[in-house]
């Protein structure tokens, strides 16, 4: 078995990606015939949706933190989820006096967040509402980013903060700023250290893969639901593989 694994080792990653792609396409086309897909309740997204509505009524704004992960690296994946959330929030709060604000700790992410806001407003026919200073770079290292984003939470009439992307333990300073300003904090990260801190400090922590379900829960389209369903299936496959591997190891078939 090991020889077989070694021989296909170089292509295992590619096979896995093709498997993911196949599953997403399968669910995308098969779910199209179903009237509605029921997703399990995640309190954080329920509260976030409610907060978007309240922010519009109260004349407040949402703050979406994209973290400081570079898209040239692995950490960029979580930041892309933040861009999806920014798009959905800008659409939902299109009638609000105060549009959503995005902060990032990376130059590329800042430009992408500006681009996301601009294209969202363009698609809604309200491009005149676009202001490039609503997407800001606040600092380039962890603590500088946190120090730059904290005044925004305090001073920019923020009703809810969504922290997503690659952040470290410095996220505690941001969630504390949210707590002091009386705004809701929904937060998820790809970093284990940040997740441990978020469990303690955030109103609504998103652990593990929950962050990556944001698009499906915020109505970003059938492709997001299809990818969520494929992730669920693949997770069970991985759990099965781990359990079988552990049993085989326990029985002494593998050294």
């Amino acid at each position, binding site marked *: 078995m090991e020889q077989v694994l070694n021989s296909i080792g170089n292509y295992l990653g590619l096979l896995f990606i093709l498997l993911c792609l196949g599953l997403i396409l399968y669910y995308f086309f098969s779910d199209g015939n179903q009237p509605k897909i029921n997703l399990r309740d995640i309190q954080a997204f329920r509260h976030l949706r409610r907060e978007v509505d309240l922010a519009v009524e109260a004349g407040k704004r949402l703050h979406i933190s994209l973290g400081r992960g570079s898209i040239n690296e692995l950490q960029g994946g979580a930041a892309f989820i933040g861009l999806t959330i920014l798009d959905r929030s800008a659409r939902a709060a299109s009638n609000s006096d105060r549009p959503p604000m995005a902060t*990032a700790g990376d130059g590329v992410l800042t430009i992408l967040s500006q681009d996301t806001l601009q294209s969202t407003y363009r698609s809604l026919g309200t491009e005149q509402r676009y202001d490039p200073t609503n997407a800001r770079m606040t600092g380039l290292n962890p603590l500088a980013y946190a120090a730059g984003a904290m005044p925004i939470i305090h001073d920019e009439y923020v009703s809810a903060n969504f922290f997503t992307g690659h952040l470290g333990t410095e996220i505690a300073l941001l969630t504390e700023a949210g707590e002091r300003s009386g705004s809701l904090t929904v937060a998820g990260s790809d970093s284990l250290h940040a997740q441990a801190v978020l469990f303690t400090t955030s109103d609504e922590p998103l652990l593990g893969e929950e962050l990556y379900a944001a698009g499906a829960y915020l109505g970003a389209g059938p492709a997001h639901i299809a990818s969520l369903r494929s992730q669920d299936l693949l997770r069970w496959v991985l759990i099965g593989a781990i359990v079988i591997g552990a049993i085989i190891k326990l029985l002494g078939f593998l050294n």
Partner: protein
Amino acid sequence: MKKILPTSNAIIAVISGLLVLLGYFFPGVFGNIQSVLIGWAIILAAFALLLGIYNLALVHWKKAGAGGTNGINSIVLLVSLGITIIAASLSGPTGSLSVWIFNNFQVPVEISLLAVLAVVLVYAAARLLTRRPKWSTILFLVTVLIVLLGSVPLFFLGEVAPLVALRGWVTQVPAVAGGRGLLLGVALGTVATGIRILMGVDRPYGG
């Protein structure tokens, strides 16, 4: 033009993404083009950094113009930015002036923030029981206490062997298992996000 650009952006992004991805699996065929594309991305990222700094300066220029306490903070930031750029231009990024600014301004400020961070975390842990009174919270706090007590010698007792052993087991077995579970979820999410971008469904580039 406005209708053509999003489509052409998407085509360029999807093809570039596919070529870079294939470069990892077939380095002999796609390795060279992958290197070229990544090189371009790094150059663009450097320019994006400059634009980010311009964005930062623009935001604080507007705030400084608005006046008030925040205006003063923004003026301090703009002056500091200007001085740092001049110093780094004169002596280079690792020159004496740049290092002096780093050691005497940035390091003390970051250490102060780290100290605040430690207090914030202790305060948040103490507040956790009132914020989220669940069994999982109690388990979390008990685990934190065990790991802390097992990590340091205690007054009059020194190192307590059972606590040290328990700490070792907690950090090496359940913590590692939980951490790996979370990382697997993150990895699956990242792969799915990448595939959606390669499919052209998610277009974070204004497409």
